């Protein structure tokens, strides 16, 4: 056990393990020390210096986030020298910052703004450095906007991009007064290794990195009486949206549907429907690959098969492991399957002309914006998904429309592509796609339910970076006899750093699997870059619990039992991996450069 250290903070005694910091000790006493560069998801940088505190007897102040506790330490967090220094530091940050707060996208949700409000920085007479800076705004990415004039150089994005995502699309360039956060040779973000995951956005304390928003475009579409606007909502949105209305860890599915109807969407549908569809397509694809590899002994059958739901992961593999592109499932993501069906199946069934349909999706994700823009995603003959809004953008629209979200009654999704199973809901969590796939595939192959209590496949759940599971297949039905005795080996990674590690192991043949699920963001989609800000391990854990609760409460828990999906195959697609599926629901990806 760690040694216990005794110290005092503002005269109050506190005891804490020896490897903890002053910041953590203060937290224990409910003393708030302001921070900017510190983030619970990231390693300690100690560069903003806002958290400086006084150690009695020492002339220099200490950064509370970076300094470990010592026996007998006497810390002051609010002495005159601390207050004056802290104020100076905030003033300095503001002098380099384009503080046009009222016109800023992050107005009201900015840590620097909050801090300067707390310290009442009203009459700083430091020289405004912004005019001498020649700051650039990069708007070329379909997913994010990078505005250097709002940047406070805390490097949270840099650490996020390297530690969580192993990409380093953002890094520090130059030194001294020219120091800035930059991409490779300062290229625009759409030309570099950026996965568009948006993790930098949810870790940015200011408005320097924000999503490219499409709110006005969607309002325009909603206002046009000639257009039929359909909206789909991803599973993780319903466990995050509540946070924008001060309710953490809540499930707001019914209120969300109700709000979307009030916003004027003609049909409020569910990405979960196509998540179920994905399971049927992807499950069939996996079984086909296994058959070819085991029975046909065919060479060139790529195993393990990787999931393809996460567009951040897709972009990552295109850049970093293009030699594994053939291992990706050819299935489009649920969003894109939905989009392709909205302008074909849905249009036909409802008797609406495809070009009058505007397809909007609400996603916990910024990479989905990029995905929707891909040239591969126009198989319906139109742009399959017209606009992608993040959970945050939806919250903005709800607020703009004057909807009192917390007082809304629950409503249900519309019919036709609105029904879903519990298996689809858990797509929003790491391990969810794997669990959903196993629930269906195992039953298809053996005729029995997966051998887990309440269908809860515990080994694939939880926040561990890389999870492994295996399922032994015994006594399969006749069609799948070749799988008898096969141990189906699976792995799950979330966060691209973990994905990188897993792929490195696979490449080195240190690990062999049949099926691998990867989600670009920590925790899966529930921790996506389009989710409410802030994020932290605790917040993600709450969202995860909500997701699995939602699954438990669903009357249907397995994708292949979704009646609307069965109806879709019957009326439109034929069979999984059939000709129409192939045209609309499957695709291929492209190798990309590594800078």
């Amino acid at each position, binding site marked *: 056990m760690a040694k216990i250290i005794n110290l005092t903070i503002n005269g109050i005694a506190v005891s804490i393990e020896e490897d903890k910091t002053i910041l953590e000790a203060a937290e224990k006493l409910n003393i708030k020390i302001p921070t900017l560069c510190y983030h619970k998801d990231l390693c*300690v*940088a*100690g*560069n*903003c*210096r*806002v958290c*400086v505190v006084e150690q009695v007897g020492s*002339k*220099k*102040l200490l*950064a509370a986030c*970076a*300094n*470990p506790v010592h026996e007998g330490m006497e810390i002051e967090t609010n002495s005159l*020298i601390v207050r*004056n*220094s802290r104020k*100076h*530091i905030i003033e*300095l*940050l503001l*002098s*380099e910052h384009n503080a046009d707060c009222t016109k800023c996208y992050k107005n009201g949700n900015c840590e620097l703004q909050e801090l300067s409000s707390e310290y009442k920085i009203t009459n700083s*007479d*430091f*020289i405004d*450095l912004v005019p*001498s800076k020649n700051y650039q705004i990069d708007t070329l990415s379909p997913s994010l906007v990078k505005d250097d004039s709002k940047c*406070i*150089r805390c*490097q949270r994005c840099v650490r996020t991009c390297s530690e969580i995502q192993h990409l380093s699309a953002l890094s*520090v360039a*130059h*030194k*001294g*007064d*020219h*120091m800035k956060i930059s991409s490779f040779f300062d290229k625009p973000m759409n030309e570099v290794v950026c996965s568009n995951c948006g993790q930098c956005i949810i870790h940015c304390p200011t408005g320097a990195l924000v999503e490219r928003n499409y709110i006005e475009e969607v309002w325009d579409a909603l206002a046009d009486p000639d257009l039929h606007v359909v909206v789909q909502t991803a599973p993780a949105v319903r466990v995050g949206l509540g946070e924008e209305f001060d309710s953490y860890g809540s499930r707001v599915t019914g209120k969300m549907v109700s709000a979307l109807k009030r916003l004027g969407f003609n049909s409020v549908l569910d990405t979960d429907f196509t998540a179920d569809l994905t399971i049927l397509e992807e499950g069939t694809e996996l079984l086909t690959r296994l058959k070819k590899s085991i029975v046909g002994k065919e060479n060139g059958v790529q195993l393990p098969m990787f999931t393809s739901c996460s567009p951040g992961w897709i972009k990552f593999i295109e850049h970093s492991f293009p030699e594994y592109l053939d291992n990706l499932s050819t299935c489009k993501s649920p969003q894109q399957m939905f989009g392709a069906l909205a302008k074909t199946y849905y249009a036909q069934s409802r008797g609406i002309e495809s070009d009058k349909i505007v397809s909007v999706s609400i996603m916990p994700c910024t990479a989905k914006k990029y995905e929707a823009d891909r040239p591969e995603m126009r198989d319906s003959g139109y742009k399959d998904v017209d606009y992608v809004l993040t959970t945050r953008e939806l919250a903005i629209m709800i607020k703009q429309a004057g909807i009192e979200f917390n007082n809304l009654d629950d409503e249900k999704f519309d019919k036709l592509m609105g029904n879903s199973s519990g298996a689809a809901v858990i797509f929003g969590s790491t391990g969810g796609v794997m669990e959903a796939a196993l629930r269906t595939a195992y039953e298809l192959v053996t005729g029995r339910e997966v051998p887990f209590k309440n269908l809860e496949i515990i080994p694939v759940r939880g926040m561990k970076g890389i999870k492994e599971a295996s399922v032994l297949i015994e006594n399969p039905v006749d069609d799948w006899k070749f799988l008898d005795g096969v141990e189906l080996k699976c792995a799950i990674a979330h966060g691209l750093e973990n994905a990188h590690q897993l792929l490195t192991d696979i490449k080195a043949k240190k690990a062999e699997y049949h099926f691998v699920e990867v989600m670009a963001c920590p925790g899966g989609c529930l921790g996506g870059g389009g989710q409410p800000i802030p994020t932290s391990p605790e917040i993600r854990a709450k969202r995860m619990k909500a997701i699995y609760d939602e699954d438990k409460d669903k009357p249907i828990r397995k994708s292949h039992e979704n009646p609307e999906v069965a109806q879709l195959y019957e009326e439109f697609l034929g069979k999984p991996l059939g000709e129409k599926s192939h045209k609309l629901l499957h695709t291929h990806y492209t190798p990309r450069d590594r800078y």
Partner: protein
Amino acid sequence: MGKKQLRRMDLIFANDEDFRDILKQTLARPNEEIIEDMISSGLKGRGGAGFPTGLKWKLTAEEKAKNKYIICNADEGEPGTFKDREILTQVSYKVLAGMAVCAKITGAKEGFIYLRGEYKFLVPLLNQELDKFHSACSELGLKFNVKIFMGSGAYICGEESALMESMEGRRGEPRNKPPFPTVKGYRGCPTVINNVETLAHTFTIFKYGPRKFRDLGVQDSRGSKLFSVSGDTPTPGIYELELGMTVQDFVDDFGDGDTKAVQVGGASGFLVPRKRFKETAIGYQGKLTGISLPTGGSMMIYNSSRSMYNVLNNYLDFFQEESCGQCTPCRVGCQQLVKGVDAVKRGDKPTAYLDKLLKLTDTMKFTAKCGLGQSVANSFQSIVENFREEMIY
């Protein structure tokens, strides 16, 4: 000029033909004894920060770790110092001997000379010396290998933790301390990092014993030190002098008779105006009290033809550019100081704005992450407080 001449020492550059014998004898002595000698000699880091060298070696020796490293900091970047270059040119074997003994004591198997980018021309010479050194090591049964690592010209990489970051292939940004390099240095392993001159002095101590070193200098500032003398002086160059002299004595010897001020310790040091020459000594004694100044050995002499505003501006420009840019007080503080003194000079800001800037430098001193940002206050405060009128008119 120079009526009263300070005693020139000749320990560092003395050519000791008995180098191998001294190294052999020293390596044969027990570790504790050598450390004891190092501590009792009173040798402190000659890079300017003045950490007791013996203690640094002792702390690293006490750490338990598979790998340890010895680094010679030859990034000599402080404006106005050029002594390490000369040591490496003339007596690099002394530096290497210091590293070898340190390696024996700590158990390090690898060492590096982090060589300033601009000193690339020294590489062929150093490689020759390294060949000789390595053969001496193997003769003496010491497994220790020293490589040269080239810096790329950033001032901040002279800061020990930024230096290690850059050696590890990352951006040269200072780390949080603690942990200190003696615990977690290069590649997370215990590391001794010493300035070139410090290591050269250790050879003197090995050869003559701690007593001879200790007898030089004054209380708490023991031994001799190399000074890089530049500016308005008829006799610029490198001089080995005893620590503890007053600036007056120094100016009497090296000044041109019209000395207005002396910048002690380079851009990150202090400006001593004429009226304080007599009361200011050079050494570590009573650290930062204003009467005794620690120094890396840069002595820049300014005569009455120099504008102190320009001198300050030049330093601030340097810091503004050479700050690594990671921490707020240093990155933005330096920019505010540059723009601030300019605004006062032009009359865009009232003269009282200088007081606000003085307070800002206090904040920089208390809160900056590393020595660079913390020491900007030294030159700023000593110049603005002593030559306020020159800042304004």
